């Protein structure tokens, strides 16, 4: 196993292998979303929700994944007319693979509790009872989570780059800007869906 296998599996593995892995993680992510009562409101974005059913959790993940695939496929076609749908599907599925670990980090590092406390204070400074022992898993959790998010973005960039033969500087800039715009837009758009 070398760095390419980890950071750019799209250059090495066949589309079939990538799809099987990606689909497996899609199922795992949906189950972990249900277990942690978190809805996926865009790729790389989650928010807590009460009374989430397994079907809803699965639908949220499905809607986010499918819309990201559509968005990236259209963008890919604009850059490079030989872009294949399966390469974009694999890019999105695999880039979301680390999500279940991120959700576990939020749940078990104390970040979840902190967010609930901050939300409950309605603007005023919350009293955080973090002792020195609790701060260790919290810090490790935050750093691990950040590393996973960066890894996810790296996967989506490398996957898109491989799928569309991305080289030109302005294409790369356009990809990054439109991806962030899409993520933001999707968080708002998904609120209007009754899933």
């Amino acid at each position, binding site marked *: 196993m070398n760095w390419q296998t980890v950071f750019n599996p*799209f250059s090495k593995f066949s*589309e079939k292998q*990538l799809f099987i892995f990606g689909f497996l993680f899609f199922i795992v992510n949906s189950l972990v979303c249900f277990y942690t009562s978190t809805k996926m409101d865009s790729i790389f974005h989650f928010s807590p929700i009460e009374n989430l059913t397994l079907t809803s959790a699965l639908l949220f993940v499905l809607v986010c994944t499918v819309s990201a695939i559509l968005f990236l496929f259209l963008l890919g076609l604009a850059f490079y007319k*030989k872009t294949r749908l399966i390469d974009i599907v694999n890019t999105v599925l695999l880039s979301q693979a680390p999500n279940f670990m991120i959700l576990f980090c939020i749940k078990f590092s104390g970040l979840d509790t902190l967010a609930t406390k901050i939300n409950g204070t309605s603007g005023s400074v919350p009293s955080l009872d973090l002792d020195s022992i609790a701060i260790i898993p919290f810090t490790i959790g935050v750093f691990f989570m950040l590393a996973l998010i960066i890894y996810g973005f790296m996967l989506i960039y490398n996957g898109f780059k*491989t799928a569309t*033969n991305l080289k030109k500087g302005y294409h790369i800039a356009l990809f990054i800007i439109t991806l962030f715009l899409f993520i933001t837009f999707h968080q708002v758009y998904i609120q209007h869906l009754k899933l």
Partner: protein
Amino acid sequence: MKLPIVCPSCENSLRVSQMKCDQCETEVNGNYELPLYLKLNREEQNFILEFFISSGSIKEMAKQAGNSYPTMRNKMDDLIEKIKNLKS
């Protein structure tokens, strides 16, 4: 022995100035341009050869090289671009 295609001093493209028959030792002198295929580096020449041997199947080439299809197709597109530039 590897055929040099760029000048080791100024990195400009080299041209053929002499050819020799191994049998009768006849020598031909002139100033000939290298054929397009020989202007490519060794790796690119091998790529074209592999493509020909695998009956023009990028999928088959990718399988043999242990790479994914889009990686191989991207290499091919880059090479096509390079050849187009060399031709013009």
